[in-house]
């Protein structure tokens, strides 16, 4: 299994997964690490939550983003769950939870705090109908993640603008 690690996040990629862990150059303020993982080729120029990628998914594909928020989110109700979800159930996925509603797909999102860092984990299934076989792939991925305390966020005044979707 291939393992990637950067910015205090490591992932032992399950079969056929590829991924990247990066910090976008901050145009203003501070940007934090993002991990993107998929069972299909991830284009380089996509949004943090998969815009530009989810439209390329096949019915057997999975896409997931691990997105870190700033320390101001620590202690808030949204991030009160300690530790990432150990696994997802097929019912956790719904076409209504997609950031971009592409017919046939479904998604889920969880907010949590781990290693003193606030995160959200957002996953998309290429086919909601096939969620019984695809959700275990998401669970494989999320169980392979390793999050370490603290990483130095990127501060800056130049570079590409943050991407929200």
């Amino acid at each position, binding site marked *: 299994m291939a393992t990637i690690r950067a910015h205090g996040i490591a992932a032992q990629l399950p079969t056929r997964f590829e991924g990247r862990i990066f910090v976008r150059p901050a145009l203003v303020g501070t940007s934090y690490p993002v991990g993107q993982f998929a069972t299909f*080729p991830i284009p380089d120029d996509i949004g943090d939550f998969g815009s530009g990628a989810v439209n390329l998914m096949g019915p057997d594909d999975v896409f997931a983003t691990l997105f870190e928020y700033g320390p101001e989110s620590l202690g808030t109700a949204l991030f009160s769950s300690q530790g990432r979800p150990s696994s997802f159930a097929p019912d956790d996925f719904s076409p209504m939870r997609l950031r971009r509603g592409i017919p046939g797909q479904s998604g889920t999102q969880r907010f949590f705090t781990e290693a003193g860092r606030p995160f959200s984990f957002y996953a998309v299934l290429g086919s909601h109908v096939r969620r019984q076989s695809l959700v275990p792939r998401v669970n494989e991925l999320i169980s392979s993640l390793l999050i370490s305390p603290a990483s130095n966020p990127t501060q800056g005044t130049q570079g590409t603008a943050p991407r929200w979707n």
Partner: protein
Amino acid sequence: MVALVVVLTFVVLLLGVLVAGLLRSHADILRSLHELGVGVGDPAGTSERSAARNSAPPVPAWSQTSTALSPAPTVVGVTPSGDARAVAVDNSDEFTLLAFLSSGCATCAAFWEALQAPESLDLPQGTRVAIVTKGPDREIPSEVAGLATGRVPVVMSTEAWLEYEVPGSPFFVLVDGASGAEVGQGVAPRVEQLLDLIRRAEHDRGKQHRTRRRPSARRNGPEREADADEVLQNAGIRPGDPSLYPQSLEDVFPSGSGAGTTPGSTGRQSAQTQ
């Protein structure tokens, strides 16, 4: 006197061993060069092949087989900016071209430029290009960053060079994503020759190639419509089929079917036990 003869004999023997070793080393070098196709010292130097090699433009050394060479590993490394990147070569139905380039290699310059504009190369549809340099231990990240345009993945990974047994740059490996195996590898001195080799590999793959029907951003409306029609027909769904006209969400996601579950059903339990 006897001592002198003994010493001289010993020296002669020593020199003999030395000469034999040198000859053997020379033969090993010639054999290696011959295997690489250089042909220096080739006893068949006047053969047709050598004559053709001398008169025609350099022929790319490219090994290609109709059967897959070997499973291709995921390329794992860092980007020039220090982020982590893994490029899998077995998660696509199409070809992945891994271009092993260096920042300081003169021959590589044309490939750096051409391969980062893959849409202008007339590659087989869906072919993905990834550039792999040696890791930050062997390459200067800022120099690689200066060459990277961000249009194709650029991964710095000495490990990948070792795994793919790259002899030097530029070197190319073509992987068929459907099988996850290498279908060709070697060197090509010019971009045009590399493209010719890729097209040949595509031709060899022929019509046996089956895709997993992944949408392409490049296909237009009528092409997507034709694809949808084909998939539906293969599934036995003809025009007018009732499944094409759902009356409710239940018709689309039947709760009692094996494909879906209702909240609290066994689907949740089975997933949680994994």
